[in-house]
């Protein structure tokens, strides 16, 4: 994209106003993130300072050292909890993206018996609140003997319709001509899915990775996983934090640690979203 191209149809006054607008709202939005980062390095007396200060005065690593001591004494090694989370998140995210996209392609590009019904069910299911379905869900899981396994967290995440609905709405935009051309070349639907649809909806599935990762990373397993060594790290850390006021410093360190990975995933993925299509877009 050339510099000249970007400037088309843009007035300087408009640019200045909009930049100011973005700046003001940006400060407003980024505030909690700055707060969390600063809090993690505050000594206890600064954390309990009221009214709280945003920026740390005497940065310290005490909170992290305290956390290391607590974690070091834990009954089940922290590495096990971390493994659980990484495993859940990786399998769940990969499953959501691949299985969801596979189903999104035919629903977005073809009409065939059952396709309308399926599309409807997907939108409708987004509108039914999860709190009351938790009970029937638990019954189904226990009948399938999935309670207290990773699958109890992974499969419902994969079966959630948000990802499919997102992919479906992006795949609609892929020109039919490209699919026809691939068919003339003798490609099967699977090949078209992998070689045409996925590359052209990259921005969408990268976004889906972010959403899925974020949801699974914070998953505690709730009532579906009860064996201690199968619990994810967010559960273990929340137990540490729940021990009371004495752990307030440690809690702020925990908050930062739990946030670092999703933020990294977010930044890396977002820059990929932006790079993918920066020059092309989708054309007929």
């Amino acid at each position: 994209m050339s510099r000249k191209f970007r400037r088309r149809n843009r007035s300087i006054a408009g640019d200045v106003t909009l930049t100011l607008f973005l700046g003001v709202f940006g400060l407003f939005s980024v505030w909690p993130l700055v707060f969390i980062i600063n809090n993690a390095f505050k000594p206890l007396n600064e954390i309990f300072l009221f009214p709280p200060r945003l920026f740390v005065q005497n940065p310290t690593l005490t909170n992290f050292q305290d956390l290391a001591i607590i974690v070091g004494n834990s009954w089940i090694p922290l590495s096990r909890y971390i493994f659980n989370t990484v495993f859940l998140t990786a399998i769940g995210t990969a499953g959501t993206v691949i299985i969801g996209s596979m189903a999104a392609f035919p629903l977005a590009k073809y009409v065939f018996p059952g396709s309308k019904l399926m599309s409807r069910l997907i939108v409708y299911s987004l509108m039914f609140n999860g709190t009351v379905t938790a009970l029937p869900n638990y019954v189904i899981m226990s009948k399938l003997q999935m309670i207290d396994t990773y699958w109890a967290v992974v499969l419902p995440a994969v079966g959630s319709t948000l990802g499919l609905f997102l992919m479906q709405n992006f795949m609609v935009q892929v020109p039919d001509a490209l699919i026809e051309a691939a068919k003339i070349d003798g490609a099967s639907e699977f090949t078209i899915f992998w070689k045409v649809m996925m590359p052209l909806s990259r921005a969408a599935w990268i976004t889906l990775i972010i959403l899925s990762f974020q949801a699974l990373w914070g998953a505690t397993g709730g009532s579906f996983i009860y064996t201690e060594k199968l619990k994810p790290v967010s559960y273990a850390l929340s137990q540490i934090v729940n021990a009371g006021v004495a752990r307030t410093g440690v809690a702020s360190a925990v908050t930062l640690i739990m946030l670092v990975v999703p933020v990294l995933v977010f930044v890396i993925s977002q820059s990929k979203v932006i790079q993918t299509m920066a020059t092309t877009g989708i054309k007929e």
Partner: protein
Amino acid sequence: MKAIWKAHKEKYLLIMPFAVIFITFTVIPVFASIVISFTSFNMLELPRFVGFRNYIDLMVNDDVFLIAVKNTLLFALITGPISYIMCFVFAWLINELTPKVRAIMTLVFYAPSISGNAYLIWKLIFSSDMYGYANAWLLDYGLTDVPILWFDTKKYVLPILIIVQLWLSLGVSFLAFIAGLQNVDRTLYEAGQIDGIRNRWQELWFITLPSMRPQLLFGAVMQITGSLSVSQISMELAGFPSVEYAGHTILTHLHDYGFIRYEMGYASAIATMLFFMMLFTNIVVQKALRRVGV
């Protein structure tokens, strides 16, 4: 049957893995909940069929539910459209920036959504004593003599919840719009310039928005489901139950019956009612969105 399978075999195979998981873990539980909504079910004894009684009770005998509906609708009517527009406007403005700045700004705006329950900071701002930011500020400027009890005063609860929700707006739809903007065919803009498009606003209305119709539809569904199912921020900030039910919503009502009173039949009826409200809103909004860019 066989002919259909033969003609569309590959399509069905592509859908199959998702369909199996989706039907097992989403469709069946939803239907089960709808069935439960016609029963009286306390989770200890077996459900007892009661016909439409839960629905009739809900609409005729439950005054608190009516308050919840009123609050939810007011809340959704304000936050839904504003959040939706904010998501689009910010995505669109960010799209104008250079790639590096853009990646940073996306994180900046998405920060409230990625920081877990960072909205609890609003508790500090609207803390009831003189140390809460809002009170400290009002006292400093002499706008009030005594600290205001924000979450204990009926008239302040809903407006504060609305502000917090707006602050949380830039979530899923925002990311979908950012991704959608990358898909817009750049040559359309050049062609548009030749056709006499003079400024960014015309470009937005005649080129960008029509090119993003699928993403706009997606965002609308997200916004409808999100703004009508507010509960957590209400329970965390305004408490549960909130003062004179000022922050009571359909979902907090559901929470009350589902997890405190264990009346699952009644709770399921609430969920079903909410479902139909969303369905109806969705039909209206989708109709309106068809008129974009024409």
